[in-house]
């Protein structure tokens, strides 16, 4: 029994190890964003509607976030700084909250307020349109309305990449 058990255990470990090794070897599949960004309209925090069309001509950064997502919460104050800095140069930032019930998000925003517009994507339609495959997801749309940049996840230091991309696109 011991021998069969040992072989079985090692067989299972070998399979999983091989699968894992291959998984680690594969770089993160990130389809290069291209083409026009999908148009959408969402209810806005504070009332009214928010639509992508109203920002045509500006560089638009959309950040998909949720109050239950640690890295999203960590990123928000930095996004606020970026918004404040580049807002007057033809740049805007939209925070799309993906929660079906926005109460937790509103409570969190009360404690950590931001000045950029927040839209509620309660039925996940906009998340699906933008093929959100990780939390948080940040996309940047140029002045012509084309999707030019996509970043999944947030680690401290990522905002440097955002700033470089925004600076370049704002000059276009």
């Amino acid at each position, binding site marked *: *029994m*011991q*021998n069969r*058990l*040992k*072989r079985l*255990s*090692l*067989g*299972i*470990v*070998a*399979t*999983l*190890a*091989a*699968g*894992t*090794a*291959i*998984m*680690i*070897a*594969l*770089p*993160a*599949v990130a*389809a*290069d964003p291209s083409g026009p960004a999908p148009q959408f309209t969402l209810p806005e925090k504070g009332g009214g509607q928010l639509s992508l069309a109203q920002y045509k001509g500006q560089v638009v950064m959309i950040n998909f976030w949720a109050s239950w997502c*640690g*890295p999203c919460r960590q990123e928000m104050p930095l996004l606020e700084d970026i918004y404040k800095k580049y807002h007057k140069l033809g740049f805007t930032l939209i925070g799309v909250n993906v929660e079906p019930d926005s109460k937790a998000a509103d409570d969190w925003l009360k404690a950590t307020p931001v000045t950029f517009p927040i839209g509620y994507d309660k039925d996940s339609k906009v998340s699906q349109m933008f093929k959100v*495959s*990780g939390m948080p997801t940040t996309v940047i749309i140029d002045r012509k309305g084309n999707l030019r940049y996509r970043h999944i*996840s947030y*680690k*401290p230091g990522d905002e440097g990449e955002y700033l470089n991309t925004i600076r370049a696109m704002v000059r276009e």
Partner: protein
Amino acid sequence: MQLVNWLKVACGAFSGMTRGDSVGGGQKAWFLPACRALRGAFSGVGRGDSFGGGQKAWFLPACRAVCGAFSGVERGRWGKVLAVLCLAGAPAIADVLPDDRADVLYHNYTGGGITIQGPSVLVRKKVGDNLSFTENYYEDLISSASIDVRLSASPYHETRKQESGSVDYLHGKTIYTAGYIHSREPDYKSDTAYFSISQSMFGDLTTVSMGYRRGWDNVYRDVKVAGVLQNDPTFHERADHRGYSVSVSQILTRNAILDVNFEAITDQGYLASPYRKIRYLDPTVAGKGFTLADQIYPNTRTSTATSAQFKYYLPWHAAVTGQYRFYNDTWGITGHTIEVDYTHPWRKFIFDGSLRYYLQNPANFYSDLFPRANYQNFMARDRELAAFHSIAIGLGGEWDFDFPWIRKKSSLNLHYNHLLINYSDFRDALLAGDGTYTAGNEPLYKLNANVLQLFWSLWF
């Protein structure tokens, strides 16, 4: 061989793969050696012990120790105990390291003539973005006048101390964990090293963990010399342990998650207790009718345990958990564990309730009373190896609050468990010969124990 043909197909698929942008020319070359190695590993499976030197070298990087590990075997007169303390905590998600926290716990077990209490302090701290360190200090202050102690020895007090530390390293979607546990008491020292890897995959719906664990124990014995307990210099035994574990965690729906775990453990060396005794029927002993003798254990033990845990989010904001574990080993012990838990948050509180049922079939060398001396090669009377069923109910309350001054999340927790064990083949041998019971006809033993935990947690 059919398996090798399948693998040829798989490897052929990989080498021809050009899906998406992720697999380009450079990547192809990487796969093939891995595939060949895998094929080579499997072609040995059907042909006996081919996992020798050459193959082992390939596996070692991939063998990790996942949680659920055991430290050393805690022996001594508190019985056969595997101190489970993978207090690094299982790396729950292989994309973010667990939050920094500190826990201070007071634990108390009282029942069957034993009281064991003490502290457990845990600190987990991130250093940078990718490293997290965990340290734990744990103590058992043991005061034992258990049924086993009263039968073959005398009540004693003892302290067991345990220190453990581990590090988690996050790289992409993988967490690598390495840890070490050292446990010591006057008559038992154990050291355990473990290593595990946890990989998040398939859109983060699946987490696969693998672990390897290695333990080294040194067993000593205390004897009473002129009424004073001291170490017996003539007694020093060793025991070694190896553990392999695999876990797969799968998110099933928005509300449900399923974990499947498999763990194989091998022990070698001195696996008995220097203090516990067996008893055999002896009509020449007036009154009691039995004589005590040394237990004789096999010097190897291999066990496998397979378990599944299912957790479901209830629509009124609560959670229910169902668990089942099947255990089997080369000593003939089988164990079935079933547990149901319910968690209900309410305002600043979280309430937990649990019900656990355990059924065990005995070791094949266990007997409460052997018919005569030297009845068989291996003999044991440890009730941990007996036939019994147990029921444990648990209740817990957690109060969440913001810690003053630093305004970080904090909680105060109280957990109570009641454990009832009904033995089917372990009798209260202390009652033999008191006029009512003869050896082998004493009432079956029942254990009632209360377990209390009071702890404070801080997230920082």
